[in-house]
C-alpha cells in the first residue's frame, strides 16, 4: 500500500486505484461528484491521505473497508459536515475548495449550504426529528430552506413516503416507528430536498438483522432507477446486487476500485484480498 504525499495544490494528482474509467458502463452519465486530493487531519491524526474519486450520474458507488479506514469521514467531507483539510469537492458543477481556516466566513458557509442542497445524506442512526411527525420531518427543510409552498411540499413528501412504503405512517411520530421504518422515512426526507446525489453512511448498521432487508430493498430500487448514490456499507451481498462500482479504502487512500464482480471475486490488490477474506469468512 502506498501513502500518497501531500498533494501540491496547483497540480492534479494522478487518479489512484486501478484504472477504472476505461470500462464505463453505458448507462452512466457525466461526472456528478468529483473529489480531488482530499486530505483530512483530526489534529495530528491523518485520516484521509489524498483521495481522488469520480462518481458519474446514475452511478451507485459502494465504499468498503474496515472501520477506521476513513470511508465515513470521506462521505462527511463531501457535504462538509467535516471540513477537509486540503482538497477540492465538486458536486453537480459546484466546486468548493477545502478551507479549514476560514470555515466561519459567511460566503464559505453559504457555499457549503449549496453543496448540501446537492448532496443529501443518510445516517447510521437515522436522526429523524423526534418532536415532529413523519410528514413534518419531510416538509421542514423543503418549506423553510427551499421555500417550496406547503401544499406542494406535502404532495412531494407523500409521493416519496409512498415510494418507501410508509405513506400510512405520515402522521406518526418517529418514536412509534421501527428502526427500518425510521431509516426509510429518513430516505424519503432526503429525497424531498431533490438532491443530485444521495450519500448513505452505513444505513443499516444500527438495525436489527430482520429489519435490514426493507431498507436495502428501497436503496436497491433507488439504484436501479438511476439515483446517483455513494454508500458506505458492510453489506457485501447488497454491494454485489446494487453497485455499479465498489471502492476499497484503507488507511485513508483508495486502494482499488472496479465493478462489484471483479472487486468481490477477483480483487487485484493484496490489501483488498486480505480485507475480503476476513470479511467473507465471518
Amino acid at each position: 500500500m502506498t501513502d500518497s504525499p501531500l498533494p501540491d495544490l496547483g497540480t492534479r494528482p494522478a487518479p489512484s486505484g486501478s484504472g477504472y474509467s476505461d470500462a464505463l458502463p453505458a448507462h452512466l452519465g457525466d461526472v456528478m461528484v468529483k473529489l480531488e486530493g482530499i486530505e483530512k487531519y483530526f489534529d495530528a491524526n491523518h485520516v484521509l491521505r489524498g483521495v481522488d474519486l469520480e462518481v458519474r450520474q446514475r452511478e451507485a458507488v459502494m465504499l468498503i473497508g474496515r472501520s477506521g479506514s476513513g470511508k465515513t469521514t470521506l462521505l462527511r467531507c463531501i457535504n462538509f459536515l467535516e471540513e477537509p483539510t486540503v482538497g477540492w469537492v465538486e458536486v453537480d458543477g459546484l466546486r468548493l475548495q477545502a478551507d479549514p481556516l476560514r470555515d466561519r466566513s459567511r460566503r464559505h458557509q453559504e457555499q457549503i449550504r449549496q453543496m448540501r442542497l446537492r448532496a443529501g445524506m443518510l445516517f447510521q442512526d437515522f436522526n429523524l426529528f423526534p418532536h415532529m411527525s413523519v410528514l413534518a420531518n419531510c416538509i421542514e427543510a423543503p418549506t423553510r430552506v427551499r421555500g417550496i409552498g406547503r401544499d406542494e411540499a406535502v404532495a412531494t413528501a407523500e409521493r416519496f413516503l409512498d415510494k418507501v412504503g410508509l405513506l400510512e405512517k405520515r402522521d406518526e411520530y418517529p418514536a412509534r416507528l421501527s428502526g427500518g421504518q425510521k431509516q426509510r422515512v429518513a430516505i424519503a426526507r432526503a429525497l424531498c430536498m431533490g438532491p443530485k446525489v444521495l450519500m448513505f453512511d452505513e444505513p443499516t448498521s444500527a438495525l436489527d438483522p430482520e429489519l435490514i432487508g426493507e431498507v436495502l430493498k428501497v436503496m436497491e430500487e433507488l439504484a436501479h432507477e438511476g439515483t446517483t448514490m455513494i454508500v458506505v456499507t458492510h453489506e457485501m451481498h447488497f454491494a454485489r446486487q446494487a453497485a455499479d462500482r465498489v471502492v476499497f479504502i484503507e488507511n485513508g487512500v483508495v486502494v482499488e476500485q472496479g465493478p462489484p464482480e471483479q472487486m468481490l471475486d477477483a480483487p487485484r490488490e493484496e490489501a483488498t484480498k486480505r480485507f475480503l477474506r476476513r470479511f467473507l469468512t465471518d
Partner: protein
Amino acid sequence: MTVAPIVAQVTAARRGARRRFSAIFAAVWLALIVLIGGGMWIASGAEFEFVLRSGPVIVLQGAGITILVAALSIFFATILAVLGALARLGANPIINAIGSFYVSLFRGTPLLLQIYFIYFGLPQLGIVLPAIPAGVTALALNYGAYMTEIFRAGIQAVPRGQREAAEALAMPEQLVMRRIVLPQAVRIVVPAIGNDFIAMLKDSSLVSTITVHETLFMAQRIGRSAFEPIAALIIAGAVYWTLTIIFSFFQEKLERRLARGDR
C-alpha cells in the same frame, strides 16, 4: 392441572397489596395534617371565626397577586435563560462574557438583596419602578441566571446527530437552533423549569418586603390588625402549599404531553 387459578390469585394478591399501600399512605398523610395543622392551630390560639372572615381575603387578593408575580417572573426568566444559554454557548467572546457575568452576579448575591437594590437602589439612578414591576424584575433576573445553566445543559443534551441531520438538509445555523435544537432542549428542561417555578411561587413571598400585596403581605397585614398573626401565617402557608400541589399536578400533565414524541 391448570395454572389459571394460581395466576388469578397472584394478580389478586398483588392488587390487594397495592390497595393496602395506598390506603395506609393516605391515612398517614391525613394524620400528619390533622396532628401538625391542629397543633399549630392550637398554638396560635385563634378563633375559627377569624378564618372564615379573613381567609377569603388573603386567598382572593394575596394568592392572585402571588400567581401573577410568579407567572410573569417565570415568563421573563425563561426568555432571559434562553438568551443567556445561547450567549454562553456562542463563539462570540463579548456576548459570552456578558452572559457569564450575568449568571455569576445574580447567582452570587442574595435574592432579597437584589429585590432591595432594584426597588430602593435604582431610584437613585433615576429609574423608579413600582413595587410589582420591581419585584418581577428581580425574580426574573435571579431565576433567569439559574435557568441559563439549565437551558445550557438542555441544549447540550440534544444529540449531535440532530444538528448534523438538520445541517445536512442545508438548514442554516439559526434555523437549526430555532426549529430543531431548541424545541428538543425545552422538552428536556421542562421538569427542571417546573421545579424552579414551584420554588419561585414561594420565593415570590420575598417581594412582600417591598409592599407588593401578595399572599404573605396580606396575611401579615390582616393578622396584625386582627391580633391573630400566627393564624394568618398558617393560612398563608396553606395557600402556598395548595398552589404548589395544584401546579405540580399540571406540571406532570405537561411533561406527559411533551413526552409524546419520546422513546
